[in-house]
């Protein structure tokens, strides 16, 4: 395997109801990430983009993105219909083939321009589940109920996740929901989709971000302290909620094992948990100990969830923790599908 690292990042502040096009969202973050890496566009050997047509309400919505990155002369480029975290995975694969040394990954999600709860419900079985319109939040609520009933989590623990996330978000310029709250205060609120309350669900926002990856000596040249990818893996579970345990996450556990999370102490973990109980599940599945690992110091996706960019945002935050020396070893996680169906785990280290 080649040594591949994140050498530069950029992300835009979260917004609600932006009137910007996807091209306008992407252009500044890609330009900034390229500038932060100290490279020219022409130095980039591979570009990879993550987005979702259904969120744009338009087929081939990603096609215009090549305008944002400047595809002339023609470039080597690909797109995943998924979170940008999976685009990063494809770029990592590409760098491993040795075909190029520098790749740029970017993602955009205009989560507030449509009914995201219904849009994500379209991921379900089109014959037997989607026609019932269960709702994405409601499926997560079923999972939360299963976790509460099994004694895996408590409503207090879930509220604690929200309190910590909103508090930590105060120091994060791109976060949306921030401030000081108490557990009692949050638990006094009504259920929105029982047993979930508003604080248990992430805030849909519009956002975009970009990451520059480089291999070997190129990475060493471009960054003072590259965030070296020491392990990265993604796995999927069956989608059927009745055919898997909702109180554990096998796909996360396997991906974490393959990525080598447990091989050493983790200083910072950035986890894409769109619901509070899911953070608790994911921490457990990855074997993370919250007393020794700082969980979601950015505030995580709970305080700002630009769907399709929120997973890549975890990479941005984890890599920046490594760049700044706040972490020698960091984990970035991304998820997709109802009730944490698909999970990606990456371990990064500073020199």
């Amino acid at each position, binding site marked *: 395997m080649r040594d591949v690292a994140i050498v530069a990042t950029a992300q835009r502040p979260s917004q609600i109801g932006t009137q910007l096009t996807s091209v306008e969202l992407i252009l500044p973050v890609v330009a900034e990430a390229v500038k932060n890496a100290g490279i020219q566009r022409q130095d980039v050997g591979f570009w990879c983009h993550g987005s979702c*047509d259904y969120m744009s309400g338009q087929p081939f919505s990603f096609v215009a993105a*090549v305008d944002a990155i400047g595809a002339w*002369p023609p470039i080597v*480029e690909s797109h995943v219909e998924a979170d940008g975290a999976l685009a990063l995975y494809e770029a990592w694969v590409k760098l491993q083939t040795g*075909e190029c040394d520098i790749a740029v990954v970017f993602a955009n999600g205009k989560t507030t321009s449509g009914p995201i709860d219904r849009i994500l419900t379209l991921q379900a079985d*089109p014959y037997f589940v989607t026609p019932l319109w269960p709702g994405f939040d409601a499926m997560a609520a079923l999972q939360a109920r299963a976790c509460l009933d099994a004694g895996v989590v408590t409503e207090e623990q879930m509220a604690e996740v929200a309190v910590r996330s909103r508090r930590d978000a105060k120091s994060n310029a791109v976060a949306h929901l921030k401030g000081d709250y108490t557990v009692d205060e949050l638990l006094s609120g009504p259920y929105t989709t029982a047993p979930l309350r508003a604080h248990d669900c992430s805030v849909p926002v519009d956002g975009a971000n970009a990451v520059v990856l480089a291999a070997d000596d190129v990475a060493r040249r471009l960054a003072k302290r590259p965030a070296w990818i020491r392990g990265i893996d*993604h796995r999927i579970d069956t989608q059927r909620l009745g055919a898997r345990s909702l109180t554990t996450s096998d796909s996360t556990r396997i991906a974490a094992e393959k990525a080598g999370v447990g091989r050493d102490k983790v200083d910072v973990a950035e986890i894409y948990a769109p619901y509070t109980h899911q953070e608790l599940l994911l921490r457990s599945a990855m074997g993370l100990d919250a007393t020794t690992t700082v969980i979601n110091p950015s505030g995580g996706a709970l305080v700002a969830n630009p769907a399709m960019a929120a997973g890549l945002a975890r990479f941005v935050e984890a890599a920046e923790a490594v760049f700044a020396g706040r972490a020698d070893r960091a984990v970035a996680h991304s998820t997709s599908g109802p009730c944490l169906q698909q999970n990606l785990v990456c371990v990064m280290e500073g020199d």
Partner: protein
Amino acid sequence: MAERCAVVGVGQTNHSSCRADVSIAGLVREAVDRALADAGITIQDVDAVVIGKAPDSLEGVAMPELWLADALAAHGKPVFRVHTAGSVGGSTAIVAAQHVMAGIHGTVLTIGFEKQSDGNAMWALSVPIPFGMPVHAGAGGYFSPIVRGYITRSGAPSHIGAMVAVKDRTNACKNPYAHLHEPDWTLEKALETPMLWDPIRFIETCPSSDGAMALVLMSEERAEKMSGPKAWVHATAMRSEPTAFAGREQVSPRAGEMCAEDLWRKGGITKPAEEIDVVEMYVPFAWFEPMWLENLGFAPRNEGWRWVEDGVTEMTGSLPVNPSGGVLSSNPIGASGMIRFGEACMQVMGTAGEHQIDGAKKAVGHAYGGGSQFFAMWLVSSLKP
């Protein structure tokens, strides 16, 4: 650095306008089961799945690979989704090959599919765009001015498109999986079909199909242990350029030329027309055959149509193009690129049956998408690189 990769199994569905007998999952599994049987392995032997399709709005399922994980027996495995417009079948196969070439997985299953009958492609592709310029022309309306541009520039006579169409529809009769089996076309009859988007006639247009293609790719170490025929991946290439800008060459896009140049360079090909035995080319409208012959560097500029007229691209010609019948005979959009890639493999594996080009050793699979702006190609051979 990159490891060698071989295709050891190819499987496709019986393509048709409406596969009402199967669900989306059933359609996908038909291709997958045939590919696994061709490779002589079971689905448990697969390490990772790389899946591609065209816009999700064609079936109305967002990110259907999530739901399909069950049908693919993929729980606990990686499932990776690619979407790069019409070229997606090709780029998906390339991403799958890169998983092997990078040494990450030893056995990768890749799939391209589309079940157009579950939705309405014309609707799905014509959604009013809230923040952009509306293009309600459909694919035929979009590409017809580009075809007109080629005819004007090259001086091609007006019957060339129909010649390509008759060839591909005739070839398709030798391919049991093709959607259209129409043996009775003649050039005269073809020229009588209605003009849909001048200069594109009805017969010069691809059908709407349900279908899937699946390939099993293996590392050299694993492929060597398989007794069946193999298609070694000699080179892959992808290029993209913007849809529109002033002065853009749309008849022979630069991205296509660069993609082909990259493919020839990586594959050690100096005289493509002499060294390549057969091409599976993405030709959704018949006129694109001569256009791509030039864009890929087979024929000199403005000469592609003469090759068609001289029968060079017939199955009996020196550079057979689309012996499978091509996109003109089956177009499950998200699978069409991978069908080209898979048919190229079948030719060098010697498993193409009645549409086999005898002795084919080097074959090219080609796909394009968007406004002639996304290109994906691979070069496969019966011989190890």
